[in-house]
């Protein structure tokens, strides 16, 4: 039953922030650009030096080796990044074919060249790449930012299923109010480095 807790997390102009996300819960954050939404997610993933602490269940971030923490509390960046020629080279553990179908990606997509994929295809593939690591909590930075309405629905449905099946805790940054209505149980506005409850 993974739950994610933030205790007095602070990084640069953001925080200190306290937040608790129960298992199988999805919490959304919105905020103006530059308000530090990405900084907050990076601090939770321990990619930036920060104050305060994040806990997965009762385990503090600093108690786990950094790579292990990042596999368990996985950040999916707004812009997907690729370092090898072929899509499949980025998947250490192969890919769940059911998820590929759900995102309308053919099985042959693993043999595609990265350079020939559209931004939207890359974003969907990058999400699957992270889900294959079976994270207990997900930090999603505008996961549908480069997708059309149809692609957005596919991703929302997949993430919803993942959350309920794995009891995963989701922290989802979105600028789309309608999307927040659809996916979140709670939502916050990040303003001046503080979280304000939206509903």
């Amino acid at each position, binding site marked *: 039953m993974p739950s994610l807790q933030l205790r007095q997390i602070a990084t640069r102009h953001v925080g200190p922030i306290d937040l608790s996300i129960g298992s199988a819960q999805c919490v959304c954050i919105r905020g103006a650009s530059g308000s530090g939404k990405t900084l907050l997610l990076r601090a939770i*993933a*321990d*990619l*930036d*030096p920060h104050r305060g602490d994040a806990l997965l269940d009762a385990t503090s971030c*600093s108690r786990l080796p*950094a*790579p*292990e923490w*990042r*596999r368990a509390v*996985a*950040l*999916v*960046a707004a*812009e*997907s*990044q*690729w*370092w090898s020629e072929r899509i499949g080279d980025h998947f250490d553990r192969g890919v769940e074919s059911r998820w590929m179908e759900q995102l309308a990606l053919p099985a042959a997509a693993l043999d595609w060249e990265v350079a020939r994929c559209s931004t939207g295809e890359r974003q969907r593939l990058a999400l699957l*790449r*992270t889900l294959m*690591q079976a994270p207990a909590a997900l930090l999603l930075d505008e996961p549908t930012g480069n997708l059309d309405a149809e692609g957005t629905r596919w991703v929302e449905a997949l993430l919803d299923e993942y959350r309920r099946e794995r009891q995963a805790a989701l922290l989802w940054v979105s600028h789309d109010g309608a999307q927040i209505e659809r996916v979140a149980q709670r939502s916050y506005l990040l303003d001046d480095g503080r979280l304000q409850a939206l509903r």
Partner: protein
Amino acid sequence: MNVVALSPFDLAVAALLILALAGLSLRMHLGVERPLLLSAVRSTVQLLLIGLVLKLLFDSARPLWVALLATVMLVVAGREVMVRQKRRFVGWWGFGLGTLSMFVSSFAVTLLALLLVIGIDPWYAPQYAIPLLGMVLGNTMNGISLGLDRLTQDAAQRRAVIEARLALGQDWRRAISDSRREAIRIGMIPIINAMSAAGIVSLPGMMTGQILAGTPPVEAVKYQILVMFLIAGGTGSGTMVAVGLASRRLFDERQRLRLDRLRLPRS
């Protein structure tokens, strides 16, 4: 065969080339006459000085003086590596990283040559120790500065990729592996090229010097081969050590990429 001693007049003839070049530069508005003359004067003075130093050193052959000169050479090379970096590490790392790697590689390789290959008595005889160290150090310096420059530039440019790999739970070694491999390769290319071209395209300076000084060509060639291998060993190991240490230094204890440990490039 004896060495034809060069008189000051002989050198003056060669210096005419520099003067002619400077004159041409002035007429064609190339603007290189000043640096050209300045560097010509600098090399004359520096070489005369080292000539005098070596003469004193050869006469006395005291280990302390040999060690002192070797230290001066190392420090100057370390500074050179540092100033050639577009993004160098802040603080002592900027100087220490290259200097330490050069010390480990060049000194080890030179010691190996002096003790096991040449085997003269005393092993620190400056006639052998200083020129060998100079050649190994000079080339290792190039390899290390090329490798470090490539690594830090690459890490800065590919920051998003490296952090995406960290975010997927890869450890720092794997996240930086591509940049690291490329940096070591870049550092080793000059010596690999020099070895392939040696004897066909270029006659290496050391060998040419020995032949001019009257050494039988085959003896000179054997020394050149030795020196090439020493240089390759020094450059390769030095570049690997430097790039390895620098890669480690780019990440902190929580395996975060810390580009704030690099100075911003001067524009």
